[in-house]
């Protein structure tokens, strides 16, 4: 009998179809990989299985009987547990308290620590987590905390355990630790769903594979034995992507004058740079007018390259040269002063003052942080300049007085871009710039990025969106375990090659 079965699951969010016809069949005592590109519907399916989201249609069965969860607590009562991407531990509490959040065994009104310890100890031993129950969780290593997350899930004695991208930091020991965990889980006859986009891990750890594409199950519980990474990549991307490289975003607006004319060579050069534990001997160049992509699985080091260019991190060996020919300065402030602009996908936290009007946000770097307007900041000047840039980037708003927090995701990111364009940057660094924006806004943003490059700036971009990397970039460096393993451009710059190189460290022979 199947431990978990989902059939013909459909879910739409306001007209956007997240799941069209998704299914998942997981046998007890197996580790089942759930794979798919960004936006394929993995996380929606996980949310439905864990009761966080209700499906529009479809059947969910646990051990043969139909279930319908009202919320996550309901799912947990039915034996579905999740270890999520973001660690959800309380760092200031000890190990034992963390294992029983909100459901401590009680003796009268008091928490029964002895009973808790009796329940917790065997699980920790089984997982090989050698810590004292009194250790503060904040003092544990990342790997230990991940194990504790699993232990916390196992205390509830689940029948289905979902590991939602559990390995964000991929060091060599993590995989071994994971293997150990999974062996324990198999012995306990738990059905494990392993959600990941790191195919190497999948190959090493899983028994069966389900692949989602565009909200549909395209590979249904296939045994791993018959699969290879190239085959999986093929099914994740499908046929439709084969000729998509033709649709390259074009510059949509004229931003000449909005970026600084390059002094010196104008080329951003990363030369033989190493950073402890993160990068070894990485060289990257990006010329004015180019959009250069950086790809890799989480922790592969591609984001570290951005951090180096932004002055957020210092190399332990090698040098980063800004377009004016001098080494990248220490600290973000200095880098900004030298013409570096940084747009992150986390615009609500790092990009915007949500309670402030658009014009105030737009002037934050040039007039406020850099004080380029002199000793006085004139509101009228700020509004005028914001208005000018708003029409250049085609910002859609009823008024510049509107608080940034009330704009749509795409428009918010345009405001972030506006505030950087005011500084006339020579380097634009993008970190997942279209995270969580809809397709139309994404296309517009791509046009703007292309426009910035055409105006003569160096553009360096990290992205988790392979389509974005393949279509927007002129060249893409793929990093694998802290090294550049491939430089793709022209014919070879396709999602297929990027995904394969990210995961294997080599470009498949065409």
């Amino acid at each position, binding site marked *: 009998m199947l431990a978990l079965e989902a059939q013909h699951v459909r879910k739409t969010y306001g007209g956007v179809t997240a799941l069209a016809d998704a299914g998942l069949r997981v046998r007890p005592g197996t580790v089942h990989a759930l794979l798919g590109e960004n936006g394929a519907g993995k996380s929606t399916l996980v949310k439905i299985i864990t009761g966080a989201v209700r499906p529009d249609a479809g059947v969910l069965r646990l051990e043969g009987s139909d279930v319908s969860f009202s919320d996550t607590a309901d799912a947990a009562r039915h034996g579905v547990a999740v270890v999520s991407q973001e660690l959800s531990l309380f760092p200031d509490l000890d190990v034992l308290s963390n294992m029983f959040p909100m459901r401590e065994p009680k003796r009268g009104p008091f928490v029964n620590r002895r009973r808790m310890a009796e329940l917790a100890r065997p699980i920790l031993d089984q997982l090989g987590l050698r810590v004292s129950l009194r250790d503060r969780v904040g003092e544990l290593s990342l790997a230990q905390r991940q194990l504790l997350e699993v232990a916390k899930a196992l205390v509830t004695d689940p029948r289905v355990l979902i590991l939602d991208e559990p390995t964000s930091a991929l060091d060599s020991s993590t995989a071994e630790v994971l293997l150990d965990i999974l062996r324990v889980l198999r012995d306990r006859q738990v059905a494990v769903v392993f959600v990941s986009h790191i195919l190497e891990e999948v190959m090493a750890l899983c028994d069966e594979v389900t692949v989602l594409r565009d909200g549909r199950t395209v590979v249904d519980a296939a045994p791993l034995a018959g699969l290879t990474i190239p085959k999986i990549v093929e099914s994740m991307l499908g046929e439709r992507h084969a000729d998509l490289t033709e649709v390259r975003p074009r510059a949509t607006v004229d931003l000449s004058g909005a970026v600084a004319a390059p002094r010196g060579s104008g080329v951003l050069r990363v030369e033989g740079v190493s950073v402890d534990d993160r990068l070894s001997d990485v060289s990257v160049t990006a010329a004015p007018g180019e959009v250069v992509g950086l790809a890799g699985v989480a922790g592969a080091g591609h984001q570290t390259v951005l951090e180096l260019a932004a002055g957020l991190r210092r190399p332990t060996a090698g040098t980063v040269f800004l377009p004016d020919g001098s080494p990248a300065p220490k600290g*973000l402030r200095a880098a900004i002063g030298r013409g570096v602009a940084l747009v992150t996908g986390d615009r609500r936290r790092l990009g915007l*003052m949500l309670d402030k009007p658009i014009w105030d946000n737009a002037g934050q770097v040039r007039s406020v942080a850099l004080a380029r307007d002199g000793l006085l900041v004139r509101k009228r000047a700020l509004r005028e300049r914001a208005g000018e840039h708003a029409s250049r980037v085609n910002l859609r708003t009823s008024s*510049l007085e509107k608080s940034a927090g009330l704009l749509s995701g795409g428009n918010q990111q345009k405001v972030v871009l506006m505030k950087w364009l005011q500084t006339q940057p020579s380097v634009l660094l993008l970190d997942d710039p279209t995270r969580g924006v809809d397709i139309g806004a994404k296309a517009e943003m791509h046009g703007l990025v292309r426009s910035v490059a055409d105006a003569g700036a160096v553009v360096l971009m990290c992205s988790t969106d392979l389509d974005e990397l393949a279509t927007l970039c002129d060249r893409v460096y793929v990093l694998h375990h802290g090294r550049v393993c491939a430089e793709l451009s022209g014919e070879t710059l396709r999602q297929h090659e990027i995904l394969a190189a990210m995961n294997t460290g080599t470009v498949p022979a065409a």
Partner: protein
Amino acid sequence: MTSSTTDAPRQDVDPGPGATTGSGPLGVVKRAFGMESTSVLVATVALILVIGAIHPDFLDPRQLRDVLQQSVYVAVLAAGVAFLLAMREIDLSVGATFGLTLICSAMLMRDGWSPWVAVIAGILLGALLGLANALIVQVFRIPAIVATLATLSMFRGLSLALSEGQQVVGLPLDHAFFEFFGGRLFGIPVSVLVLVVVGIVLTFVLRTTPFGYRVRSIGSNPDAAAFSGISIARVRIQALMLMGGLAGLAGMLGLAYFGSGDPNIGSGFELLAIAAAVIGGTALRGGSATVVGAMLGAVLLSVVTSGLVYFDIPVNWSSFATGAVILIAVGIDSLLRRRREARAAAAGL
């Protein structure tokens, strides 16, 4: 402010110069006194009228002048506190800084220093004490509320130790400094005039300088501010030094008026100053501030304490009554503000 703010959302507005109104001299006055600080002004006037209706003596210009005179010190402190709250910081040592600068300047004058030099030294000392606070926060990586809780005791202790717990007397009261700053001009206490000047200058600093914008940026979203290249540490040092300097200035105004130095003067002013800033409309969550509001908040507190004298409240109950009135004032203001904000949010602004 803008004509388009009340319109139904239009698509693709041309955000040209038409979107910028509300400037010009009239607009500046409107903005300085309008908006955030109107409610506290209305509350103050209403309270004066209510007390005056029951006890007409209270409306005597001399009485009102005294009320203003007494509010000056907390008002100057509250203006600085408003800056700090706007960047999500706080300084609990302001009352002690006020007291210490006052005592030190008084002792210097007693020892024969020129009062003018002693006054400059007092203000500089205040700024230095603010710098000390900022460096403690920076070096030990502790929140300002903890650092200044410690320096509150230290500064107060220094006042007591230096003066040996005694009043500092024997100052050259016939000197021009005491005559002018302790006196009146056109019937208005000079210290009140100084307060007005400070209010104008600080409003200008807050609203039109990069420093003022940085303060509000940091309070609005510290992470985004840092990512925009604003040095939070540097702005914090500047803001705490400004706070200290203002405390020093308040100390000098107090010295001019009292003509002697009491080592316990200013005890509890830190809480009054924070209350005044909050009453005035500066939100504790940061991101915005109003200097005029904070000063009016201090006036309101002064009206409350002076007004209570007119009622037969037993002396041991006056603290309780003061607190109750503050609570009512802040409570009503907060409820009204929330309603206004809800309406603004509903309008999509």
